[in-house]
């Protein structure tokens, strides 16, 4: 008996992975043992009451019977607490004193069985619903509650006991009243279940939040957002910088970006050098220039077409170009390493351009203008990579 009690206690205290059925079985076992213990002391009195109860336990496998089963052990426990039972089982002499307390609840439970069996058909559906609800509640309790819920349930069991005592009186009056009471009980249970569910849900909710809390920590959230932002920007840069798609890893990509920016800056330097070296000796009049001569330019830069500057630029002379570039390198004194490379490679192509530019003084079509620097740029780039 002590072992059974203990198992029941552990299964309700720890009851983490106990299903309702298991719990019922444990209770049944305990009850049998208890009955056996009681029978040892007082066999005649309890024999009649215990046998139908067990039958009820075994027989009522459907509907509201389960609901009653759920409560019955608690009814047993109802008026007399566990400590009492423990004392009772440990210390024999006290058992006879508390035995008298034990008997009436059992009788009440018997009545309860008969009542539920009578109103089973009417309140079947509601009871099923209730049972489902109870199952959900029990599962929740299994997952979250420990000793506290056990105590609560004991208190509720006491209340149930009282209600059932009332019901015994009511049953004398008639079955209709029992039905109403059954319905009230259902409603009460459901309300209790709701309150219990809310009670149970609270720690569950906190538990979930606690689990998330590791990730929803403001610092880690901010860090994650920052990293996402950085990777997004890196993707943008990847699209901009040519040849950056093949490189994996942010460090390599950044290296490539740095190289590209440097090359662009040096290109700008070099081109402005080239512009400086070029001197427009022949002043050109825009009005004399037919518009059809530079359709490509007009198509590309309509805003710039208004200014006469392009006309001036068109008649730049390239005579001292190569000399000027070499002079620039001497004059600046600190040409960048890669820039010298680029310029060195570019200067090879400069004579060609100088040759072509001498022809251009006689106003060549602008298409050549567009292609030549492109080739120069390519040569320049080749020198870089």
């Amino acid at each position: 008996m002590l072992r059974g009690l203990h198992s029941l206690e552990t299964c309700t205290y720890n009851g983490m992975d106990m299903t309702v059925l298991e719990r019922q079985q444990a209770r049944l076992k305990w009850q049998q043992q208890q009955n056996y213990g009681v029978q040892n002391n007082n066999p005649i009195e309890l024999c009649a009451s215990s046998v139908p109860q067990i039958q009820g336990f075994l027989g009522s496998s459907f509907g509201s019977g389960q609901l009653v089963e759920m409560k019955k052990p608690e009814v047993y426990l109802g008026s007399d607490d566990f400590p009492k039972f423990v004392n009772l089982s440990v210390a024999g002499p006290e058992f006879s004193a508390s035995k008298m307390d034990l008997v009436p609840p059992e009788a009440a439970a018997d009545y309860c069985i008969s009542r539920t069996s009578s109103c089973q058909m009417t309140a079947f559906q509601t009871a099923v619903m209730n049972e489902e609800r109870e199952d959900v509640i029990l599962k929740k309790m299994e997952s979250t509650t420990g000793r506290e819920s056990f105590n609560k349930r004991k208190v509720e069991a006491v209340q149930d006991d009282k209600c059932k005592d009332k019901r015994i009186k009511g049953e004398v009056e008639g079955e209709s009243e029992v039905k109403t009471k059954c319905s009230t009980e259902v409603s009460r249970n459901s309300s209790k279940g709701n309150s219990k569910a809310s009670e149970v849900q609270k720690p569950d909710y906190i538990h979930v939040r606690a689990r998330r809390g590791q990730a929803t920590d403001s610092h880690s959230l901010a860090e994650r957002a920052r990293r996402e932002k950085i990777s997004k920007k890196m993707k943008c840069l990847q699209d901009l910088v040519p040849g950056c798609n093949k490189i994996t890893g942010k460090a390599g990509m950044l290296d490539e970006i740095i190289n590209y920016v440097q090359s662009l800056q040096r290109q700008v330097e070099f081109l402005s050098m080239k512009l400086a070296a070029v001197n427009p000796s022949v002043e050109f009049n825009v009005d004399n220039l037919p518009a059809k001569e530079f359709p490509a330019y007009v198509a590309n830069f309509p805003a710039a077409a208004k200014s006469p500057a392009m006309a001036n630029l068109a008649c730049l002379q390239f005579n001292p170009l190569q000399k000027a570039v070499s002079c620039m390198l001497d004059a600046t004194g600190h040409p960048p390493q890669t820039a010298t490379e680029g310029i060195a490679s570019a200067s090879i192509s400069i004579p060609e351009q100088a040759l072509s530019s001498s022809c251009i003084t006689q106003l060549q079509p602008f298409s050549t203008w567009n292609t030549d620097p492109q080739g120069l740029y390519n040569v320049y780039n080749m020198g870089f990579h």
Partner: protein
Amino acid sequence: MSPHHLNPSSLKSRFTTRFLRALTNINAQNPISSSSPREILQRYRRIKVAADKSMAYSVRSRRTWSRAMRWKLRSRSWRQASSVRRLKITTTCHQAIMKKTAHERESKTTTGEEVGFGVQTDGLRELVPGGEAMDICNLLDETAHYIKCLTTQVQREQIAS
């Protein structure tokens, strides 16, 4: 060409007009008389400044890098204009910037170490104007825009030259 290039208010066309105007001004002010290295160097500097200026001003002060570049160019022109004012202003500006960079460096070291490419970001900071006082996110953003503008500049200068 896409319609974007035909848009007269686009950044590229704005840059082109500015740059060409600056070039004409330079050519008008100092018509090339000789091809001596010094003169060419002087002109190179002018053209470089004009290119930078046109780039920074066509972007307007929307971007951090353009603001930094404008500030640099302005301080440069002021330095040329008057030495007394330059001393006062640049010292205050430098103090402010140094403060900012020092503050930024503290946070930068931590963030750079976290991400794991502190060296590269430092290199990028030196390249992008005004990059000393930026965190990585802004730096990458500014770098993207700066690259766009630089490519535009290079294209236009290629066409102009």
